[in-house]
């Protein structure tokens, strides 16, 4: 009998989802917060479709066609691309050098003094707090500011860009590394620490096998971001595609700009392919 089914439920379980009300409440709250923010940001989507604005934007985009494919320009672009890739790659490599020790120091899943808790707990917490602060400063200051600062020390050219990427991205990578290391299964590392292993080996034998994929794909994603960031830094004289783009824009040469944009798309595509390949390799 179908009618017997509902009465078979325990009397305490209601037939409505008890979490529905709070879910609706949170959605509403999020909208209420978002609305004034959009106002502050002067977000008026209507402007996008204003006839005059459409015409201005159309002219701007129109300048981009056709892309400049003259061998001379492509030669410049190729050299600038290599410079950008070198800048992003060297920057990320240095950033990892900074981020790996900081991330390991910050991660709670590699804390020996937490087991028990044992001796050195206070010192451990102090080191973690200091590390957190260092990472905050590194990534809290935009890379463009680091670049402006470093250009004064190293002069115009990629060196300043590399260091600016290393510093900012070191901060970002360190923070996310430590979070990735805490979000996976931390029991293997903890078991190793509990049998007398050091932190670094507990990381390699206990944490890395489970988190290598995620660490790698986040790092490759940051490399992709670094390629893009190097454009901005090129605008302040740090070399690469960004500097080339800056010159093209100043000379109102839309065809060159669009060629550079196409190169960017290809680079992002490349980053994507690398990421997929690494994930497949580690699977």
């Amino acid at each position: 009998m179908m009618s017997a089914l509902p009465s078979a439920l325990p009397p305490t379980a209601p037939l409505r989802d008890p979490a529905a009300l709070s879910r609706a409440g949170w959605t509403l709250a999020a909208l209420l917060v978002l609305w004034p923010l959009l106002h502050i940001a002067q977000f008026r989507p209507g402007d996008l479709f204003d006839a005059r604005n459409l015409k201005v934007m159309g002219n701007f985009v129109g300048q981009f066609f056709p892309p400049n494919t003259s061998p001379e320009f492509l030669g410049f672009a190729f050299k600038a691309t290599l410079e950008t890739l070198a800048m992003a790659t060297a920057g990320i490599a240095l950033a990892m050098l900074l981020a790996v020790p900081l991330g390991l120091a910050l991660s709670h899943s590699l804390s020996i003094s937490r087991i028990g808790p044992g001796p050195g707990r206070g010192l451990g917490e102090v080191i973690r707090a200091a590390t957190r602060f260092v990472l905050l400063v590194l990534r809290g200051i935009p890379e463009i500011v680091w670049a402006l600062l470093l250009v004064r020390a190293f002069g115009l050219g990629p060196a300043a860009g590399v260091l600016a990427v290393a510093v900012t991205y070191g901060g970002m990578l360190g923070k996310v590394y430590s979070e990735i290391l805490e979000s996976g299964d931390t029991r293997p590392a903890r078991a190793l620490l509990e049998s007398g292993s050091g932190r670094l080996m507990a990381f390699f034998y206990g944490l890395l096998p489970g988190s290598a994929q995620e660490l790698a794909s986040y790092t490759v994603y940051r490399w992709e971001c670094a390629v893009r960031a190097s454009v901005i830094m090129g605008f302040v004289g740090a070399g690469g595609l960004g500097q080339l783009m800056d010159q093209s824009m100043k000379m109102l040469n839309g065809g060159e700009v669009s060629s550079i944009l196409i190169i960017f798309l290809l680079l992002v595509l490349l980053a994507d392919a690398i990421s997929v390949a690494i994930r497949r390799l580690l699977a």
Partner: protein
Amino acid sequence: MSFELSQIGLVHANGQRALRAITLSVTGGERIAIIGPSGAGKTSLLRILATSIRPSEGRVSVLQSNPWQLSGHELKRLRARIGVVHQFPPIPPRQRAITAVLAGRLGQWPWWKSALSLIYPADIAGPREQLARLDLADRLFERCDRLSGGQLQRIGVARVLYQRPDLLLADEPVSAMDPALADLTVNQLHSEAATRGVTLVASLHAVDVALRWFPRVIGLRAGEIVFDLPAVKVSDGVLRDLYASETGILPTQDNQPLTVLPAEEAAVNGLKVVVPPRVI
């Protein structure tokens, strides 16, 4: 003295009391089973012995030292001498069996040796020998996510055998194995403890395994020691008392009913437990 607990109490961080007034002293080379219903505090007790949690009350001494008065360095060295078989083997799924077993010596190896071993295994014969004892030698280079629950549990045992600890602790080491493999595994833990003269403490969910293999059996219920007897003195009544809160059926490795012989009869037969033949 392998370890000594006096008036140990443990309250977990959420306020849940797991152990109360545990006093226990164990000399070198003893083999002890801890049995009791789920939630009795078996895991908590073993974790205190493993120095992975600090008791809320009482005094602990493991391998002649008070772990919670040692410096960080000394505590690390002490931990390297304690081997723990975990109920759910804490092994990354992507790791190969050989690496998981080699990890047993991380506490003893200098860091550069452990690091080099990531590139090429520092020892192949050793892990293979330990896996062979557990009938797993052919899985040496297999990834752990391709193993069954019982096989993975044996990898965890092999790791601890490879560690060669001075105190062997095992938390339900055979819970995912069939009776034959459970016997093989417990047998290997025993012979390791016997040949090296170290103490073995194992918590077990199966009463038959405890009575068959362990000379000393401790019954734990609601965080307290209910009995601490030589296996031959453990009576049916004592066991039914221990598991009273559950179904009244004694848990066994093969889920068959269990008959516990009285002490005199057991002495005569050399047998402590009788599992009636299966009726077909």
